[in-house]
C-alpha cells in the first residue's frame, strides 16, 4: 500500500551486531540528547513562586468590591445567587444601622456572603447579573485545601481590603 505520509519505515528482525549489543554507544547518544537540553530554555515554570500571565478574560477567585469611599458595594440583592447555575452562592441580608454609613453603601448589606468554591464553575454569570458592580472574578486561581468546609469562602476572604491598608 502506498504510504500517505512517507514516514513508513521498513523494519526487520536482523540480529544486532557487536557495537549495538554493547549498548554503550546508544547510552552515549542518549546522554548527548539530555545534555543538549541543559542549554535550552525550560518550557515549565516553578509555580507558585513564578506565575504565568493570565489572559485578560481569565476568571478566577471572586472579590467583593468597595466603592471609591471604601464602602462595600454589595447590597445582598440575591441576583448573583439567582443567576448561579451551580447554586454556589448564599447570603443573608441585614439592615444598615445609623453610624455604619461609612461601611456600606446602601441601606441593606450582606451580613453573610458565602461562595462554595467546590460548586463554583467560574462561569462569570454572577458578575454579569450584579446590578451594583460589586462582584468580579478577578482574583487568582482558588488555592487547594484539605477539607471541604475550607472551600466555603465567607466575607473575610472575598471582600477587598479596605482603602487605608
Amino acid at each position: 500500500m502506498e504510504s500517505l505520509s512517507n514516514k513508513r519505515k521498513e523494519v526487520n528482525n536482523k540480529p544486532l551486531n557487536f557495537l549495538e549489543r554493547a549498548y554503550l554507544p546508544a547510552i552515549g547518544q542518549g546522554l548527548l540528547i539530555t545534555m543538549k537540553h541543559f542549554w535550552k530554555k525550560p518550557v515549565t515554570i516553578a509555580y507558585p513562586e513564578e506565575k504565568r500571565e493570565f489572559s485578560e478574560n481569565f476568571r478566577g477567585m471572586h472579590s467583593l468590591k468597595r466603592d471609591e469611599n471604601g464602602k462595600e458595594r454589595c447590597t445582598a440583592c440575591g441576583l448573583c445567587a439567582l443567576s448561579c447555575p451551580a447554586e454556589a452562592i448564599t447570603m443573608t441580608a441585614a439592615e444598615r444601622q445609623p453610624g455604619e454609613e461609612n461601611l456600606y453603601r446602601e441601606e441593606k448589606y450582606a451580613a453573610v456572603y458565602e461562595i462554595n468554591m467546590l460548586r463554583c464553575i467560574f462561569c462569570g454569570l454572577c458578575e454579569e447579573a450584579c446590578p451594583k458592580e460589586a462582584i468580579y472574578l478577578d482574583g487568582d486561581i482558588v488555592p487547594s485545601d484539605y477539607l471541604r468546609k475550607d472551600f466555603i469562602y465567607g466575607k473575610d476572604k472575598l471582600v477587598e481590603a479596605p482603602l487605608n491598608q
Partner: protein
Amino acid sequence: MKVTIDGISVEVPDGTSILNAARIIGGDVVPPAMCYYSKLAGSGGKCRTCLVKVSKGSEKDPRPMPKLVASCRTNVMDGMEVQNLTSPEVIEARKGVVEMLLINHPLDCPVCDQAGECHLQDLGFEHGAVKTRYEFDRRTFNKIDIGDKIQLHMTRCILCYRCVYTADQITDHRIHGILNRGDHSEISTYIQAAVDNDFSGNVIDVCPVGALTDKTFRFKNRVWFTKPVDAHRDCDHEKCNGKVTLWYKGEDVIRVTARKDVYGEVEEFICNTCRFDKKKTADWVIEGPRKISHHSVISSNHYETLKPLPVVKTNPVLQEANKTQFERETRL
C-alpha cells in the same frame, strides 16, 4: 353588550368597564393596571397605565373616541371596538406613562423587598425605556414606621391611592391618607400616628410597589428564594377566613400574605393576627404549593415533582428505594 377588544369579541353585562371586559377574555389583551383594584370600590383612574384606544364608540355612534381612555374607568357600550396591543399609539402612550411613574421612583430594586413581585418592575421591564430623561433630583423622604409592623418608603410610592381605599373600606377607620398636593403629595399618617387596626396589614398586599412593606419580612430574604405554600387556619376574627399563602425559607415561615390572583389582587383580605403573629407551621393546615406562573422569577428553582414518575408508580421496589425523597418533597 358585545364588545370587541383587539379583535376578540365578548358578551358582557351592562356597566362593565373595558378593563373588566378584557379580564373576562384574559391573556395578553388585558391592559396592565397599577391603581385599579377589583376588590376596592372607587379605585382606578389614577395611574393611566390601562390606557386603550376606542376605535369605534358604539353601534349607534360609531365615531372613535378622540383621545385614549382609561379602561378601568370607561364602561363598555354595545358594539364598542377597543384596541390595546394592536394599537402602536397605546403602546407609545403606555411607555410614556411608565416613564412618568418612574420619574421619582428611586430604582432601588436591589434593596427593595417588593422586587420580584412588583408591578412597576414588570411594567418597566415590558414597556419602559432604558434611560430616564429626567435631569432633576428625585424627591426624597425619610422612611416612616406606620406602627411596628408596616414600613412606608414614600420615595417608592406612585400615589395609586389603593392603600387609602383599603383603609377606608376594609378597616374601621382610616388614619393615613394623602397630604399636600401635586408633586408634593405624599402618603402619611398625621404626625406619624400608628395605624392600629385588625386589617391594617392589607395595605401591604394592595401596594403595587414597595412603598408599604412588611416590617417582619424586612430584608429577611428575596421573594424568589422563598417557597409559597397555600394554607388556612381557623381564624376567630369574624371578617377573616384565614386563607393565606405562607412563604417558606427552608423550614421557617418568613412571611404570610393573602392569596393573590393572576392580576396580583388578593382573593380575600386577611387579618393582622394571621399575617403577623402566626409564623409557625403548627398554626396552619397546609394545602399544597402555590401555583406560580413560570414567567415569574418566584418560580425559578422550584421543582414541582410531587407525583412519582409512572415507572415508579407500578414498581414497589422503586417506590421503596425513593421513599425518603418522596417524603422530603411532599413535606411542603
